């Protein structure tokens, strides 16, 4: 165990290396690790926030879904009501239309009857006159018997 200059050399190397490590090496890694720590913290933070956001969004979506369901139910109900109303109205209209058609038909029939009656009357008068002429074997002055013929026709 001979102590030589080597001990001095090693000591100098020791302090030089220490200085080098402290000024040139350590800060590089300390910075990088700090930065990464910060990044990871930020990342975790962001993840937390995102999760919270997600929960909020989910809550909001269920809320909206519920609202939408209620709204849809309302819409369906009102639609049903409206449909029923429309059907009712249509029924009413149809009934009225029917009535009107029936009334029109009645009027037409009445008219037809009247016309027929008029024709008949006309023809009755002619037949009566013809009959009378046959009976009397002569012509009957239609004008002279106009009043009587009219009375006859009116009785029909």
């Amino acid at each position, binding site marked *: 165990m001979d102590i030589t200059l080597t001990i001095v050399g090693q000591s100098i190397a020791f302090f030089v290396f220490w200085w080098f490590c402290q000024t040139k*090496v350590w800060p590089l890694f300390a910075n990088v690790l700090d930065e990464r720590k910060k990044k990871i913290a930020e990342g975790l933070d962001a993840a937390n926030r995102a999760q919270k956001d997600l929960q909020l969004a989910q809550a909001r979506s269920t809320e909206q879904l519920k609202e939408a369901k209620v709204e849809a139910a309302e819409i369906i109900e009102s639609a049903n009501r409206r449909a029923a109303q429309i059907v009712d109205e249509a029924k009413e209209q149809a009934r009225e239309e029917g009535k009107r058609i029936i009334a029109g038909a009645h009027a037409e029939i009445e008219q037809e009857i009247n016309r027929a009656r008029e024709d008949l009357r006309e023809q009755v008068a002619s037949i009566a006159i013809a009959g009378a002429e046959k009976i009397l074997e002569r012509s009957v002055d239609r004008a002279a018997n106009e009043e009587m013929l009219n009375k006859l026709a009116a009785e029909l």
Partner: protein
Amino acid sequence: MAESAGLEHGLEHGAEQTVQEYIQHHLSYLTFGRHPDGHWGFAHTIEEAKEMGFMALHVDVMAWSLLLGGGALLFFRYIGRKATADVPNGVQNFVESIFEFVDSRVQEGFDHKNPTIAPLALTIFVWILLMNTMDLVPVDWLPGVAAWFGVFVGQEHMSFKVVPTTDPNVTLGMSFSVFILIIYYSIKNKGVGGFLSELAFHPFGKWMLPFNLLIEIPTLLAKPISLGLRLFGNLYAGELLFLVIAGLLGLYQLPFHFIWAVFHILVVPLQAFVFMMLTIVYLNAAHDSPQH
């Protein structure tokens, strides 16, 4: 170390080299220093190296120490400059895991605020870990290359030690550097008076001052010495056993070498870790308030 005249004649794995010489050769350093006659140069034999005394530099272990420590730090810096805060790639991840390992050890063991302790711990841990790992390189590889190379530079039988932590100069150099830091931070945080009173009035109060000094000064000095010698001792013992296996068994060393290497893999990081943790603990104590 024992005299071994046999070293001057051939160190190839020949009949004339005994196991003792083989180990001796592997435990000596490539030494550059001042010869007794005053001129500076490489030592050619173990005896020459011994004669240089203090004025000698173990070039091999110094070179490996600088290469490993500097290489690791430059590599870290290279990775660190490219590092991003995004998903790290494999190498960056690896370096970061070492970084975070050391940083969390410092945060556990060091209660005060001093941003220079963590880089210190990182330097110590990585540096010692790499120096220790050199112990797992088969003992003849690098010295073999060096010996082959040494022939061309006039260094026959060149010694070449590749495990810096098996040199007490290296381990004690580091531990006494830590010791300097202990004293520096003690005085900085407690004042000269605080530091001295800790030595003088602890643990038995001021009436037992000489006794306190007798306890506290060895305690203080024991820190760097034990710190350095623990590392040295563990690695030296490991290296020695590798050498014994290699020297006794020659080519048949492989299974034994492997078994011991597996055990030694535990020692390599453990000693680096222990050195780092004790440094943290000692420096933490140096930051503690005087009333303790």
